[in-house]
Each structure stands twice: as C-alpha cells, then as structure tokens.
C-alpha cells in the first residue's frame, strides 16, 4: 500500500469514528452500539498486536479484559466514585496479572501457548463466579455507576449524555491506538514482526525473543484491560461472562474477520461482529448457532479477513 492510500484509509477511519453517533440512529443503530463497536474494536486491536504482529496465538484475552472490567467496577463500588481513577485501577490490575502470567508461559509457542492462555483465563472466571460476596457471582456486579468527569473548571456528564461518553471512549481509543501504531513503527515493532516471520532466524540474530514476546503480551493485555474497563463503564455493570473463554474466542474472530495482517482490520471485524450479534440475538433464540456458523464460514471462506481480500483485489 502506498503512502497516499495509507493516509486515505486513516482519514476515512477517523471520519467514520468521529461522526458515528450522529448517523448511527439513521441506519437503525443507537449510540450505545457505536460505543460498543469502539470498545470491542480496541480489545480486538489490542489482541491483534500480539496475534497479528507478533504471531503469538493467545486465546485467553478475556481474562485481562474482564480484570479491567472488574477492577474498574469494584473501584467505583467500594473505593472512590471517580471514573479516571477507576480506569487506572482496572488497567493496572489487568496489566499486572498479564505480567505475572506472561512470565510463566513465555516458553510455550503455537497451540500450546493457546491452550495455556485459555486455561489461565478460566482461573479469573471461577474467582468472579465463586466469590459472591465481593464480585456478585453469577448475577454480576451492580449497584454502581460511572461518574461525571471533573476537570477542575467544568464537569462533563458522561452518565446521562450517551454522546459525551462516546467521545470520552473515543479519546481513550485514539491514545491507545496511537501508542500501538507508534510502537509498531519503532525498531521494537519491526523486531516483533521479524519474530512473527521467522522466530528461529530472529533468535540467531541475537534478539532476546522470549523477552520481546513477553513485552508484546503485556502491552497487548494492557490495552485489552483498558477496553474491559471502558466496557464495564459503558454497561454500568459487569459479570463473569466478560471473563469467559467464549469472550476470548469472540476477540480472535473479530481480528480474523477484519484481517489480522492489517492495523485497522480488527476494528472492522469488531464492527461487523457487534452489529451482527446485536441483530441476530434480537431476532432469534438460537443466536448461538448463528454465531457458531458464522465462525465456521469465516474460517472456511474468509481466512484473510475483509481487509485482506480488499488488499488482494487492489494488488491484482
């Protein structure tokens, strides 16, 4: 893709994101749906930092997503009624857990890495599910709400005003995505791609591969927990489903559906997935079969994702 084309894509993505709350209603959606696209898009892009750009197969990102959500929810419920602080706590909890678990599993690769990440994610699911008195168990954690942003001179009501909350989320999204883009353009990011392409050669070149994979894992989980934290704020609620392995699978299918090899791909995948899930689950009780069938069809017919296909068409 040439430079002009790249800038064009970026401009188009940002234009859509900036105006989304204003036309979402006209096409049959609602502002909350737009916010969900951005939040889950962030989670999928965070996963893709590891999956698409480092080539490490993590199937347990729901753990860090859910830890971010619970960290935020519990801070607001039990500690301080401050939205920024609760986000900070959520992100810290998720990132610290990722740093510890990452250190344990960094020697594994491929399917084994996937299996261990799935299994570890389940630990947090059981804690949230079992520890009723603190986490609310299966019913989820309720009885708290996101708080207005206090900026000293003024206060922004993100609770009552859906659009204000959307733009707060979009700002966080922009910062996160900007950092990831910068990292991928840096020598560090190039090294990650080198590891993806040929790990053995990277090792022979003297690159500390395990260290790089660990850092990539932690960065990826950091942004996944930010997404989880925003997701809890969006719903004013969180439950163990945010931590379940099916959620991890959803993130992976979003990344694959949009295109793992492209930066914006997972966001597009997330948009398609969220809208489809919203539509199917409001029209049929058997939405699980439809989502399952969707997984199968994507794997069989769209393994390169939407952007992968577009790029191929453009090249030919």
């Amino acid at each position, binding site marked *: 893709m040439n430079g002009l084309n790249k800038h064009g894509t970026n401009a188009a993505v940002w234009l859509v994101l900036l105006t989304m709350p204003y036309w979402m209603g006209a096409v049959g959606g609602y502002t909350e749906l737009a916010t969900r696209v951005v939040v889950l898009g962030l989670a999928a892009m965070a996963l893709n930092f590891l999956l698409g750009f480092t080539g490490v197969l993590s199937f347990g990102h729901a753990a860090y997503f859910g830890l971010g959500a619970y960290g935020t929810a519990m801070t607001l419920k039990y500690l301080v009624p401050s939205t920024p602080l609760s986000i900070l706590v959520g992100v810290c909890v998720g990132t610290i857990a990722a740093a510890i678990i990452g250190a344990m599993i960094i020697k594994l690769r491929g*399917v084994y890495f*996937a*299996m261990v990440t*799935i299994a570890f994610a*389940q630990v947090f699911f059981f804690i949230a599910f079992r520890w009723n008195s603190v986490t609310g168990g299966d019913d989820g954690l309720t009885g708290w709400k996101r708080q207005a942003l206090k900026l000293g001179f003024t206060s922004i009501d993100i609770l009552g005003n859906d659009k204000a909350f959307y733009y707060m989320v979009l700002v966080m999204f922009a910062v996160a995505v900007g950092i990831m883009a910068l990292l991928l353009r840096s020598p560090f990011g190039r090294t990650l791609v080198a590891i993806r392409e040929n790990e053995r050669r990277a090792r022979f070149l003297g690159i500390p591969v395990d260290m790089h994979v660990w850092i990539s894992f932690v960065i990826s989980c950091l942004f996944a927990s930010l997404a989880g934290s925003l997701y809890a704020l969006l719903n004013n609620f969180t439950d163990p489903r945010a931590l379940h392995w099916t959620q991890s699978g959803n993130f*992976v*299918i979003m990344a694959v559906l949009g295109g793992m090899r492209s930066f914006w791909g997972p966001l597009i995948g997330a948009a398609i997935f969220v809208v489809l899930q919203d539509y199917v689950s409001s029209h049929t009780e058997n939405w699980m079969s439809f989502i399952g069938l969707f997984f199968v069809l994507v*794997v069989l017919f769209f393994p390169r994702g939407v952007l992968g296909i577009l790029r191929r068409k453009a090249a030919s």
Partner: protein
Amino acid sequence: MSQLLLFNVFNGLVVGAFYALMALGLSLILNLSGVINFAHGGFLAIGAYLAYTLIPYIGFWGALVVAPFLTAGIGLLVERVLIRRLYGRDPLYSLLLTFGLAYIFEDGTRYIWGAQSLPYPIPNWLTTPLSTEFFFLTGYRLFMVALVALAVGALFFILNRTRLGMRIRAGTLDLETVSVLGVNVRILRNLNFGLGIYLAGLAGVLAAGMLGLQPTIGTSLIMPSFVAIIVGGLGSLPGTLLGGLLIGVASGITTVFFPSATEAIMYVMMGVVLLLRPQGLLGEEGRTQ
C-alpha cells in the same frame, strides 16, 4: 473426618477418570493433527443425548455400546468435511472452527432435546450402595471407574500393539516420514480423530448416568481436560492420564477443606507445573515449541 476425606478422594478419582477420558481424546487429536478440538465437549453432549434417545429401544447396555460409536461416526464426518481442509494452515483456524462447532453443538442439543435437564435411567442394581459404612460406593461409580480403566487399557493396547496404533504414534513423532513410507496420512488422521471422539462419546454416556443430562454437560468438562493435558505433559498420553486423575483427586481433597476453591486448585497446580517443569510432568523437552 477421615470418612469424609475418603469419600472426597474417591469422588475426585471418579471425576478425574472423566477428565482423563476427555483429555486422552483431545490429546490424541492434538498430538497427531495439531488441532485443539474445542468441540470435544459438544461431542460428549451428543454422545450422552444419543444414548438417552436410544435407551427406550435398545436398553441401557445397548445404548452404552452403540452411542459412542455413533458419536465417533459423526466425528469422522466432521473431520472429513471440515477439519481436513485446515491441516497445514495456522492452528488458529482449526481452533476457531472447532470453537464455532462447540457453539453449534451446544445450541443444537438444546434445540433438539430442550434446555431443561433430563434424568438418565440406569439399572436399579447399579444405584444401591454396596455397604452402609461406605455409603458413597454405589455400584454405578465403581462400574464407571472400571469401565474407564477398561477403555484406557484398550486405548493403550491399540496404540502399542496394533498396526493403526503404531502408525498413530509414529505420525505423532514425524508425520512426513510416515507419509513417505506409504501410509495414507489422510485416513490415519481421520481414524485418529474418530478414536478421540469415541472416547468423548463414551465419557458422555457415563457422565449422563452420574450428572443427568443438560446441554452444557460438555462445556463444563472441557477446561479441566485442557488442564489435565498441560499438567500431565504435552505430547504424552500416559501424562495426560496421570494429569486427569491428579487434578480430579486434588479437587476432591480441596472440597473438604476449602470448598470454594474446588475449581481453582487445578489451575494453581497448572501454574506450579508450568513454573517448575514447563513441559509438564511426563512431557518430553522440546515438545512445547
């Protein structure tokens, strides 16, 4: 106290036998084809519900024999039509495909047989406790453990003493060489997949008798099976067996002292094993890459 402990250790052994049966099937498929079969729990549920449907016609024993074979047949078909296309591609894709299948199977069983749990009829003489002192030793549980032992014995006999088993083991080590030596690898992988699914179907029929039938019966057993494989050792079937029994017994013992950590204990064990011995208890070094 000691009786309670004994009860829970035995209970853990029964549960562990299940985990092992599930995990052995998963492990077979993973080792030869590099596919993590997320739909394994779905196959288990299919086995259980098929047996339930068959009982009125062919009785408890007939269903016990026939249902696992029918499940294996479905497995062969799924491998032939869907999973075979994905060999040689990034393992990510087979993972996602079986993940989608797991969704479809769970929802499908719910659609066909209903969401409410159904009782699974077992012969009366199997449900009575064998002694008043050890009330937990019902015939069915002993029968189940015996049957799992038999199945595992048969599996290892097949793997070690038959031509098919030797080819499977050889293919696990170096599939390319096996192919060059004239073995039809496509059929080998197909049969191996069917063998794994047979074990899932058998586990399903046995689980139905103990837990009753519900559409989520398989999904609740799949995670412990993953843990069993990781604890026991990647690439080692005896390790998988050991891992399953170990985490089952550990959960049983934990139930006595700290009931809310029943599920968590196996993940703690997994963490410890990964720290001290990343390849698992009986795993060979170098299989983890």
